[in-house]
């Protein structure tokens, strides 16, 4: 006759294995839980996008095919920043780079761009370049910055009229 003393242990072993497998499944599945710490992934993505966009705008055009000197960003900052032409120029370039993607999605990223010059008394003044929407204070925004050296500052918003370094700051947020 076959000895069947171990049957119960075998069944229990199977039950325990099953419980552990289910636990492991639950643990693996739980990684999809969106914790508060994960918000940095979206923030960093947006910050990288903004920084890259500013960097692209600060690349000079090819001199052999273009007679324009200076990068698009330098041209915008050297000119009077309040003119609608420069606002539109900044918006056109910056928004286009921000919303480049596989889909023709609507403009879901908003920004508020300013640049800061040093005055002759060593104080600083931020000047608005362009804003797609007024800041209400409730936005979850990230900041992207870019240093730009501008040569021709005659007539722009800066206090001093000489070659100087200015800081472009852009607040970015999604709808």
């Amino acid at each position, binding site marked *: 006759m076959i000895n069947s003393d171990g049957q*119960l*242990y075998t069944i*229990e*072993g199977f039950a*325990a294995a099953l*419980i*552990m497998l289910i*636990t*492991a499944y639950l*643990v693996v599945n*739980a990684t999809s839980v969106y*914790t*508060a*710490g*994960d*918000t*940095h992934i979206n*923030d*960093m993505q947006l*910050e*990288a996008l903004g*920084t890259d966009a500013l960097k692209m705008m600060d690349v000079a055009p090819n001199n052999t095919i273009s007679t324009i000197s200076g990068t698009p960003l330098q041209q915008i900052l050297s000119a009077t920043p309040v003119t609608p032409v420069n606002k539109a120029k900044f918006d056109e370039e910056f928004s286009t780079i921000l919303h480049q993607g596989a889909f023709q999605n609507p403009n879901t990223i908003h920004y508020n761009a300013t640049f*800061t*010059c*040093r005055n002759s008394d*060593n*104080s*600083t003044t*931020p000047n608005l370049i362009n804003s797609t929407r007024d800041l209400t204070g409730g936005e979850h925004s990230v900041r*992207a*910055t*870019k*240093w*730009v*050296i501008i040569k021709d500052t005659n007539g722009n918003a800066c206090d*001093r009229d*000489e*070659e*100087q*370094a*200015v*800081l472009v*700051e852009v607040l970015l947020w999604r709808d």
Partner: protein
Amino acid sequence: MARLNDDAQWIILMGFIVSFSFFFLALVINQSTIVGQTTAESVIEFPKNDIRDIREVIGESVKSDQIANINKDITFISMQRKSALVWYENDTGTNPTNIEIHYNNGVTSYNETWTLP
């Protein structure tokens, strides 16, 4: 004297093992959130783009004939807009070879002696 029946000892022991494994797995899930949080915070706090940007503009500025003014621009604007202490100095002359850069925003400090090619 009646013999004690100890047939179920293994089952009880297995029950303990299973419940302990549950406990430790729960502990792992519990800690993962905290680990993620601290990692995220340290990633956000590290001013990677700021340092890259400051290096780039400093590299550009030494080519300019307004080095002293641009140096002041960078120092003052960094302090007032980014709360970062920036100090840099380069060899004078027509062909500077070394730039000493110090950056400190209170959390991260970055020091570099940049040798120009």
